[in-house]
C-alpha cells in the first residue's frame, strides 16, 4: 500500500499510471484528510462529490490509456477562481452566495488536464491580506508550530493561506494561488512549501476575481519544484478572453531539469538587506549564496536602488485598481444585498456590511488616491515610481540571470499579531512586491528553518517569461538544502 502522505504530484502520476492505486482511492484519502483537519479552515467550500465523480472519470481515462497531464490528481482551488456551478466567494461576505455560471480559464485548464477539485480554498478577503486573517469565513491556521510552544497557532500567510496550509498539511497534492504583491510566495514561505508567481500575462486572468488587475497573476502552490512546473504547465495558456494574456510561446516547463546553474550569474541585491530582516533569515540567505557558488554559479552584487519605494507605490496602485474592480459588488445583480428604500443607502449599507475592515480600508485609500486633487500626487507618482522599479530590474538583468533574496523578512507569526497597525502587516510583502510591480516570475522555495523549526523560504526572481531558469534554481536549492 502506497503511503499517500509522501506522494508528490509527479510520483502520484507514476503510481496512477502504474495502477498502484486509483484516483478514487487517492481522492478519498484527501477527502478524509480534509475532514480530519477541518480545524485548519483551509476550505471554504469542499466539493467532495464533484471530486469523486472527476476521480472516477480519471480512472476510466487511465484504464483507456487516455490520461492527460494531471489525470486524477486532487488539488485545491483558491476561492478567487470562478468555478461553474460551485460557489465562489473570494473570501467575502459580499459573495457569500455567489455561484458562477462560467469557469475561470486557469481552473478550466486544470480540469482539462485531468486535475480533480477537492474544494475551494480559503483566502484573505479579495486577496487583501498577508496572514489570512481577513477572510469572512474565518482565519486559516498554519499546521506548523514553533518547537517551543506546540499549541500556539500561527498564520499561514496570505492571501493564498488556505491553499498553502492545505498543501503543507497534506490536504491536497497541490493548489492554485494568486499573487498580487506576494500572495503565493509569502504563504508558501510561511508554510515551508513551493510557491511560484509566473510572469504577468503567463496565466489568464479570465474568471479570476480581480484585486489589482495590473498585478494579479495566478500560480501554483506545491510541495516540490517539479510539481510546480507540472501545475504551471497546465495553468498557463494564451487566452483570447484576457487582453493581457501573453502570446509568447509556452515552453515545456519540465525542461528546467536541463538548465544548468553552472555559469549562471546570480544577483544579490544589497537593498534587500533591510532593517528588520530576521537574522536567521539572513543566515539562510547566505547559505543560499553558498549553494549557488558550490554549483558553479557566479555571484554578482547588484543594486535595485528603488526597492524602498516599492511597497508604498504598491499600496497606492493596488488599492486604486481595487477601488474600481470592487465597485461591481453593489448588491444589485448578485451577491449580498442590504435592502434599503433608497439606492444610495442600498449601496452604502450593502458595501458597508458586505466588505470586511481591510477591504474597506483599501477601497478608501484607493478612492482617495484617484480623487480630484490627489491623482497626480499619489496615483501618477506611484506609476512613475513603478517605472523606476521596473527599470532597475531591467538594468540588473543585463549583468545577472537570476536574483536571489529572502521571500519574507520574518517567519510565520502567531494569529493575532500585526493586527493593530495595518502598515505592520503590509511590511510582510516588502521583499515580494518589487517583482510584482515589475511583472517578473519569482518562486519561493523552502531553504531552511529558524531555531523554532519554522520554515524560511528563499525567493528567486527571473527575467520576464524565464520561469524555466527560476524553476531550475529552485530545484537546485531543493537538492542541496538537505531536508
Amino acid at each position, binding site marked *: 500500500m502506497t503511503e499517500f502522505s509522501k506522494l508528490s504530484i509527479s510520483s502520484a502520476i507514476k503510481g496512477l499510471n502504474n495502477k498502484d492505486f486509483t484516483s478514487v482511492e487517492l481522492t478519498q484519502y484527501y477527502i478524509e484528510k480534509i475532514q480530519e483537519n477541518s480545524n485548519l479552515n483551509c476550505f471554504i467550500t469542499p466539493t467532495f462529490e464533484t471530486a469523486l465523480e472527476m476521480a472516477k472519470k480519471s480512472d476510466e481515462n487511465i484504464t483507456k490509456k487516455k490520461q492527460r497531464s494531471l489525470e486524477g490528481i486532487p488539488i485545491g482551488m483558491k476561492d478567487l477562481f470562478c468555478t461553474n456551478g460551485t460557489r465562489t466567494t473570494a473570501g467575502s461576505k459580499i459573495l457569500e452566495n455567489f455561484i458562477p455560471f*462560467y469557469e475561470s480559464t486557469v481552473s478550466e485548464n486544470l480540469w482539462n488536464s485531468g486535475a480533480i477539485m477537492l474544494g475551494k480554498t480559503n483566502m484573505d478577503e479579495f486577496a487583501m491580506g498577508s496572514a489570512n486573517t481577513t477572510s469572512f469565513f474565518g482565519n486559516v491556521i498554519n499546521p506548523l508550530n514553533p518547537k517551543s510552544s506546540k499549541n500556539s497557532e500561527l498564520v499561514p500567510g496570505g492571501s493564498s493561506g488556505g491553499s498553502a496550509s492545505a498543501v503543507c498539511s497534506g490536504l491536497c497534492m497541490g493548489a492554485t494561488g494568486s499573487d498580487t504583491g506576494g500572495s503565493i510566495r509569502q504563504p508558501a514561505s510561511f508554510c515551508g512549501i513551493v510557491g511560484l508567481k509566473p510572469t504577468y500575462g503567463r496565466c489568464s486572468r479570465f474568471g479570476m476575481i480581480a484585486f489589482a488587475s495590473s498585478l494579479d497573476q495566478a500560480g501554483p502552490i506545491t510541495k516540490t519544484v517539479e510539481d510546480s512546473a507540472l501545475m504551471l504547465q497546465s495553468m498557463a495558456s494564451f487566452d483570447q478572453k484576457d487582453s493581457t494574456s501573453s502570446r509568447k510561446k509556452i515552453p515545456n516547463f519540465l525542461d528546467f531539469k536541463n538548465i544548468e546553474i553552472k555559469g549562471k550569474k546570480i544577483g544579490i541585491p544589497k537593498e534587500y538587506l533591510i532593517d528588520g530582516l530576521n537574522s536567521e533569515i539572513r543566515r539562510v540567505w547566505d547559505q543560499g549564496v553558498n549553494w549557488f557558488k558550490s554549483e558553479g554559479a557566479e555571484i554578482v552584487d547588484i543594486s535595485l536602488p528603488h526597492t524602498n519605494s516599492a511597497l508604498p507605490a504598491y*499600496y497606492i496602485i493596488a488599492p486604486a485598481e481595487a477601488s474600481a474592480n470592487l465597485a461591481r459588488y453593489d448588491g444589485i445583480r*448578485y451577491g449580498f444585498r442590504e435592502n434599503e428604500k*433608497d*439606492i444610495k443607502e442600498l*449601496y452604502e449599507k450593502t458595501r458597508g456590511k458586505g466588505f470586511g475592515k481591510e477591504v*474597506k480600508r483599501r477601497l478608501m485609500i484607493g478612492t482617495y488616491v484617484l480623487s480630484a486633487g490627489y491623482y497626480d500626487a499619489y496615483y501618477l507618482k506611484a506609476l512613475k515610481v513603478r517605472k523606476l522599479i521596473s527599470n532597475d530590474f531591467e538594468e540588473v538583468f543585463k549583468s545577472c540571470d537570476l536574483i536571489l533574496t529572502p521571500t519574507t523578512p520574518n517567519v510565520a507569526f502567531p494569529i493575532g499579531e500585526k493586527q493593530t497597525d495595518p502598515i505592520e502587516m503590509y511590511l510582510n510583502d516588502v521583499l515580494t512586491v518589487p517583482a510584482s510591480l515589475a511583472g517578473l516570475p519569482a518562486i519561493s522555495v523552502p531553504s531552511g528553518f529558524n531555531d523554532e523549526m519554522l520554515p524560511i523560504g528563499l525567493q528567486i526572481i527571473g527575467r520576464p517569461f524565464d520561469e524555466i531558469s527560476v524553476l531550475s534554481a529552485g530545484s537546485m536549492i531543493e537538492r542541496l538544502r538537505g531536508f
Partner: protein
Amino acid sequence: MSIDNSTVKKVASLARIEIKSDEEDTLIKELNNIILWVDELQKVNTDKVDPMLSVFNESMPMRQDIAKSNYSNKLIMKNSPKSNSGFFVVPKVVE
C-alpha cells in the same frame, strides 16, 4: 496632507461605503498613517519618468465582430437578489 473627518465622509460617499460613527476615528487614524507612509514617495525624483501603466507590452488583441449569445437571461439573473420579469430590481431611482 492629511485626511480629516470631512474627507473621510467624502471619500466614503464616493466609494459608497457606510462608515459607522464608532469606526470613524480609528479609520481616520489608520488612513492618515497609510497616507503619511506612502507620502515617502514624494522624495523620489521622477522628473522625466513616464508613468508605467502596465508591465504588459504586447499589442492589444482584437476580436472579430461576431455576436454570440453565450448566456441566457436565466443564467444572468441566476444570482440576483431581487428581480421581476427578467429585470433586475432596485429601489426607485429618481432622475
